[in-house]
């Protein structure tokens, strides 16, 4: 049978490509500004996030941790003027973090507010990490560490990659009141257990009760318990609060190896909350074509029901780096595959990586990326904006190393905030202006449409 596939068409004001933290944050900022928005693109690396939202934890090339990220930003502005975090006003950055974390909080994942200093947070290896905002389910960990409170880290039979003895072995020297315990997860008797399965099980009250009993049994004199991040996928705040109520103990989560529960939480929350706020969401599909004409932009993609075409007046490119496909490393060059935008990059492949993997200075490849102007518009080969309708956000932007500077969420939120601001100025300024209310009634692409 030979079927002619008719693309399903959507029209919107702003199309966001990429559903990592940057794409999600851009969509949040856009709906809060009453811009009709469609979000499409690969799921990105959001499932690999820890749940911590970093702003700036290290300055590239310097081994010591950054405890005051705002002071760190001043330093960055002076020493790396092209760094995306050096190009945003501090007030905007704070506003962006607050707006994004408020949205997450309203969906059931409350976050600490961005403070004046970094939070010293825990990792599954028992090392420490500087971050700006931590979810409520993890907040008691940094507090207990700061107070050196008596605390028991609990792990589970059959859960590999998370060892409470490892945390204690590496942190105990600085935290004498820290102890390790192991328990069995309720109703998962023998064999391997998986964080996501445990998390979903804990959404059931009876499982929480049995876990609470087990936790009380190993707490000893400690009033604080640390667990791997397994406290529910949806509304973890409720699971967490209920477990604290049942045990009478303070409880916190430590991120686990990816793909981890906190990443799944963020993705599922945003995929549910954004359509409710009017965003047209086409999840988990790669945009294969993007073109501009006098009236707007056209995005082509497809899902299992056939081709989809989105018409938009403005586009935010938030496709990420290699992991999410926003950049591609070919043997002879780094390329941006969707529009073939010029990519600032090291001279040749021999220069991509330093000799030593864990070299504290980081690798030149990670500073590769696209160039943007002050209005967040990607630049073409002639050094001019590639289109007045195109804006960029996230770690696809050059002159940063989000891994080594522990600034992934910071760059995503900052650049999304700026890109949406610029897109809004463009949409309101261009002929026709912004529609008074979102014109879309379709919110999620459903089968068969």
């Amino acid at each position, binding site marked *: 049978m030979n079927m002619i596939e008719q693309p399903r068409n959507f029209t919107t004001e702003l199309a966001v490509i990429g559903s990592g933290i940057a794409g999600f944050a851009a969509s949040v900022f856009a709906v809060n500004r009453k811009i009709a928005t469609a979000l499409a693109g690969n799921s990105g*690396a959001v499932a*690999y996030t*820890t749940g911590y939202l970093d702003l700036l934890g*290290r300055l590239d090339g310097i*081994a*010591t*941790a950054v405890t005051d990220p705002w002071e760190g930003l001043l330093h960055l502005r002076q020493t790396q003027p092209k760094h995306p975090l050096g190009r945003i006003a501090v007030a905007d950055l704070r506003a962006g973090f607050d707006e994004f974390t408020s949205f997450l909080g309203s969906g059931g994942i409350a976050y600490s507010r961005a403070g004046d200093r970094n939070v010293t947070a825990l*990792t*599954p*290896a028992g*090392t*420490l*990490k500087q971050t700006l905002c931590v979810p409520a389910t993890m907040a008691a960990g940094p507090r207990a560490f700061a107070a050196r409170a008596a605390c028991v880290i609990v792990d589970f*039979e*059959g859960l*590999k*990659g*998370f*060892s409470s*003895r*490892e945390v204690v*072995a*590496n942190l105990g*020297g600085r935290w004498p009141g820290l102890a390790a315990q192991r328990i069995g997860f309720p109703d998962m008797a*023998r*064999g*391997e257990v998986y964080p996501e399965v445990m998390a979903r099980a804990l959404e059931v009250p009876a499982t929480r009760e049995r876990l609470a009993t087990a936790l009380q049994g190993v707490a000893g004199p400690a009033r604080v318990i640390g667990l791997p991040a397994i406290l529910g996928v949806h509304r973890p705040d409720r699971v967490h609060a209920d477990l604290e109520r049942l045990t009478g103990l303070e409880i916190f989560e430590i*991120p686990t*190896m*990816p793909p981890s529960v906190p990443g799944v939480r963020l993705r599922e929350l945003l995929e549910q909350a954004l359509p409710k706020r009017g965003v047209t969401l086409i999840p988990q599909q790669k945009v294969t074509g993007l073109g501009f004409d006098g009236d707007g932009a056209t995005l082509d993609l497809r899902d299992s029901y056939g081709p989809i075409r989105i018409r938009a007046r403005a586009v935010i490119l938030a496709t990420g*780096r*290699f*992991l999410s*496909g926003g950049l*591609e*490393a*070919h*043997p002879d060059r780094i390329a941006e595959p969707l529009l073939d935008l010029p990519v600032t990059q090291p001279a*040749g*492949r*021999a220069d*991509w*990586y330093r*000799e*030593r*993997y*864990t*070299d*504290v200075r*980081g*690798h030149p*490849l*990670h500073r590769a990326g696209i160039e943007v102007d002050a209005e967040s518009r990607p630049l073409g080969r002639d050094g001019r904006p590639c289109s007045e309708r195109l804006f960029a956000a996230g770690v696809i932007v050059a002159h940063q190393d*989000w*891994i*080594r500077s*522990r600034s*992934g969420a910071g760059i995503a939120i900052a650049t999304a905030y700026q890109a949406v601001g610029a897109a809004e100025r463009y949409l309101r300024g261009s002929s026709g202006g912004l529609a008074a209310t979102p014109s879309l009634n379709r919110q999620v692409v459903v089968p068969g449409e």
Partner: protein
Amino acid sequence: MSTISPEQPAPAAATTLETEVLIIGGGVTGTGIMRDLALRGIHSILIDKIDLCAGASGGNHGLLHSGARYVSTDLEAAIECRQENELLKRLAPHCIEATGGLFVAVEGDDPAFADEFPELCRRAGIRCDELTVAEARKLEPHLSDRLVRACRVPDATVDPFHLALANVDHARLTNGSLYRSHTELLRFEIVDGEIRSAVCRDHRTLAPLTIRARQVVNAGGAWAMNIARLAGCADVDLLYAKGTLLVNHDRMTRHVVNRLRPPGDGDILVPGGTVSILGTTSTRIQDLDHVAPTVDEIDRNIREGAAMIPALAGARYTRAFSRVRPLLQGTGNASDRAASRGFALLDHRSQGLANFCTITGGKLTTFRLMAEKAADLVAGRLGNRQAGTTATVPLPGDDAGRWTEPGAAPKHWYKLNDPGDMILCECEMVPQSAIDEIVATPPGAEREVMSIEAISLRSRVGKGPCQGSFCGIRVASYLYDSGYYRDAAGLVHMRDFFDERFKGQRPVIWGRQAAQMELAEALHCGLLGLDALDAD
């Protein structure tokens, strides 16, 4: 779980060890000499600056030559290869996969070479079946459609790590001979034309160690010239040829595939377990200790390999590595590829030493023969008249190499059928019980402080597509869990393991490997902070 632990050093080690023979260099030849001597009742100590197969022994294709590669350049070497190939297939079948090999020519290759080839093989006694192009492509569907000639020869593949581990274990069990890794030779004490002792140190802790021996064997491979000079011998004359190889993520062929033309870049693809190895470039170098693949070498291998197997052009590569091949100084006018692949045994009598010898050159396929010749000389000097038996005694090795063999760990795990025995390395299916066993009784190591790197050498940990980035974390966690690590040593070992794996990944990070690396780095550095261990 064993009682050894990295922060509980064993009772102060004696600073002087005694043996009949000191062997320097833990490649296949050195381990082969150790076993050969043990079978003659002679005790030895084998030392290596790093660990088993750290040089050319571990940095090659794992090809067990039929000899066909050498028929046009070195008939004698070809015959030696043919004989050793047949012998090892019989005596060490657990280390060998009898894949068979093809020699293929494509459009544009010199037809004269292909015309001569079967006759040259016959002269060396090597079986060579001429195939039609259709037959060859039926055997190996990935072969180019521009194929013009094909021959089949008895090439095979061999696991040098398994060989070395089995040699060491057999020697240890036979007469208590010792192997010490990370033991670096500093100098010799020479009195009256005899080496009395070797002054060494632990390469990591710098703890000194003296080894007294009646005979000393230099099996240092590419480093043999440097070692000989420490003994004041100027008669070891080597050329250094750097070879670069790539590890392809997939096994693309069942046979070894060679280019039917004079030896050159990218002329061989060797299947091994679930992967394939593509090589080899050859470049003359002077500096032994700083060799790394270059972009140009990698691109040349892929370009030439793709002429035989077009899919190699777009394939996923997980590693590349370079090792130095020691070549005997030839007549001076031949190219490195034509230089003798034969070996040399020097007794150093002309240098005024009566108890020192050097064995070098040669190739993986002929390691047993080289070891036998060296052991003949040493045994004779010790007055031991027993003949060598490695040509007839099978190589045991059920245990020593059981974890290095692809597919062995999952079989073991499946047989145990213990749901509590979790898989730590998911790419290669290495379970907790395998790690327990390796740590408790490290194969090929007498008293070894194990690290994640040392475990990886003795198993498939880190050899799959993720190159250890996930299982390194899981193995470390497990070793903390079982009480083996009790402080930051586990983090340092984890970092060192990732740093070491990266050396091989670095030259081939493009395509999907770039995504894999980004994820690994986000995890190792962004989350765990392994790039800042020294600082915090």
